[in-house]
């Protein structure tokens, strides 16, 4: 972990998931890995798309990419959201990633402006849905903002998605029902906001 004040250290369950994942990968027979160039090429393209997705997400959410997708990432929520966006909004999602890739060289505010207001309602609405899922862990079907009322219908993506919600960190707090902190912390000023959303040193 990058920081002793990090609000979300690995839980035992997450370690289990991590080690199980490693074991599963090791169990794949060698003749099935690397034998087929087409799947590999697909995987490479997919990894590039995933990286684009993380960079796009960082731009929109204001949370550092290294925080959204840390080097050690047992929960791997980025993949969950990436797969979900593709499943729910395939063509628009592809379009959104393309727009982002095509405009990579521009200043961040310009890219955001292009995505959120200049590429049509479908792209802008999906971008806002992705911001919401990163912040709240819930999927709000893309639609025009004025249709949202106090409690628009949404679906919690998964328990992990709820506990990974960034709004809690932005509030310098923790998800309700998921405190990694110790007795009495609530009487003390929390660590500064930057500790929650900007990567710390890796020492």
């Amino acid at each position, binding site marked *: 972990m990058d920081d002793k004040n990090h609000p979300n250290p690995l839980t035992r369950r997450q370690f289990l998931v991590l080690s199980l994942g490693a074991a599963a990968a090791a169990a794949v027979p060698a003749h099935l890995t690397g034998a087929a160039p087409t799947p590999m090429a697909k995987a490479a393209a997919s990894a590039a798309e995933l990286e684009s997705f993380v960079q796009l997400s960082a*731009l*929109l*959410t*204001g*949370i550092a990419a290294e925080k959204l997708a840390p080097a050690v990432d047992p929960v791997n929520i980025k993949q969950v959201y990436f797969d979900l966006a593709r499943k729910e909004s395939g063509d628009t999602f592809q379009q959104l990633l393309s727009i982002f890739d095509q405009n990579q060289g521009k200043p*961040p*505010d310009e890219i*955001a402006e292009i995505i*959120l207001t200049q590429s049509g309602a479908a792209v802008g609405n999906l971008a*806002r849905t992705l*911001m*919401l899922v990163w*912040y*709240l862990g*819930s999927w*709000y079907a893309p639609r025009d*903002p*004025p249709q*949202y*009322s*106090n*409690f*628009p*219908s*949404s*679906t*919690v993506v*998964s*328990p992990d998605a*709820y*506990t990974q919600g960034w*709004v*809690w960190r*932005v*509030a*310098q*707090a*923790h998800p*309700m*029902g*998921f*405190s*990694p*902190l*110790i*007795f*009495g*912390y*609530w*009487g*003390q*000023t*929390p660590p500064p*906001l930057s500790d929650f*959303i900007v990567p710390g040193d890796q020492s």
Partner: protein
Amino acid sequence: MNKVYDVVIVGAGVAGAMIAKQLGLAGKKVLILESGAGLPPNINDFMQRFFNASAKVPESPYTPALFNDQGALNDPTQLNAPRPSVLMTGKGSWQDPKQSYLIQKGPLPFSSSYERVAGGTMRHWLGTSLRFLPNDFHMKEAYGLDDWPNWPITYDELEPWYGQAETEIGISADVEDQTYLGLTFPDGYNYPMPSIPLSMVDEAIRAAVDGQLIDDSSNPAKVTSTPAGRNSRPYQDRRVCAGNTNCIPICPIQAKYDPSITLNHALNTGNVDLWPQTVATEVLIDSETGRVTEIKYAQYETVDGPQTGAGSLTAKVFVIAAHAIETPKLLLRSNKQISEGIANRSSGQVGLNLMDHPIYLAWALMPESKPVYPYRGPLSTAGIESSRDGAFRSKRAAYRVEIGNEGWNFPIGDPDTTTIDFINGINSSGLNTDKKALYGKDLVNALNSNLIRQFRLGFLVEQSPEASNFVTLSEKYTDHLGLQRPEIHYNLSEYTRQGFVAAQQAAEKIFSLLGAKSFTAAVAADDSKAFEAGGTRFKFFGAGHIVGTYRMGSDPAKSVVDKFQRSWDHKNLFLVGSGVFPTVTTANPTLTITALALWAADTIKKDLA
């Protein structure tokens, strides 16, 4: 053949659990019937259900599930042990029997919910464990409220049982903090654990309001740490609170007490059995002696499946511990032998005087220079108790003030609502007045700046006892077992409403002392929980404090049970839980439910000796 039991208890909530444990320890054979699910080996399923719930309401972790596969509320007609939810009190649902388990006749919705599951409604309690005040027990004499019933007991009589209840639950509090408005403790008494530290929200309010007059009570305000059934040290093999800010609906580490602790202690005596998914359907009596002879039951295996069993149980003593709505439901439907209903011949009071603590909710934003960092710590760690008693009680309802640590989660569903506002450029929260749609650092900063300054106050108003607020049986609507559902008639009296008027003024005073800006929303025209008082429209919320309907008293013509919670009509029948409270008083009911249950257990033990 059925085992022979000394005592059959209906309901595995805190009252039933406490009695079962005490009787089990004394070697008595006890059977508890629980209408809902039994004790799971751990709370993992509850937690998963909570995490996955879009509406993280008090009932969300528990069974039966609130929603069906289509995302609509489950139809109570199709469930064997349905229960109310706060989701059933909105304008579109509260009077729809396909959505609302309770058949609500109004004019206002009864807005509190309960659980039908082993552990009972305390599965989702907050943990607040205040003692009632000496004056709470005799409002008639203290404040000339001639229509109000006295309790048949005094604070001094109940005091030793409070002490035992505090040990059984495991309360964290300081005696010095709790010695106010006539409360006394035995010399040298200490709570089992030290008090819970105040939050930054509490400290800010304390600094601004301590010593000030916030309302028409003559007592200067004082913010004190709230006695809580929440561990400040390891206790009963349970962990110390980690401030999950989730006491309601569920503490993920069980640092907060829930009755599964006591149920397990009871089962471990080897003398107590618990039958889940077993609904008591009828109480039978011997018409000559008036004693209860049997309780009939129906059983099922799945929440909406067919009835799978039925039978009848005999015992020496029967205890109904199904709280203030399901208990009268059982008594009133057991009326084939007695037209008035069981335990109702002498007084006719069964089902009457339903009460709650209707809540006035006020929320505000601290100045930018004074963030209070909510969404941290237990949901509430402190309150203002100084307004619970005073001469004003002759004219208006008293209240206690609960300080919330969960920002605007209760009032507006935050942090979600504010997040949606700033991402979509709308203003449901009131915080995004320019309707800016933000992204990146601006979004982070706007959310941070607003969320770290939020707080709310909940005023728990003492509802006056009224015979016109009552539970009866629906003529028309049943559950899946064919049992008539509770029909509720409910309103707030002028006395109670005047408590809201005072609460609103107190909230404004507190906000002004803090330099905080109120965001308490105007009440929508069609809100089901809206009412008028003093020319102002108010909205109330339920506190989950379901009280009254089989009141205790000293006169068999005016009360259902005596001071020992024994039915006046049936000497081997005890009715326990908050249904016995003649008045709802000014504090959360659980500690008093527990104290009275322990007292009843002692009486039953003597009966069986």
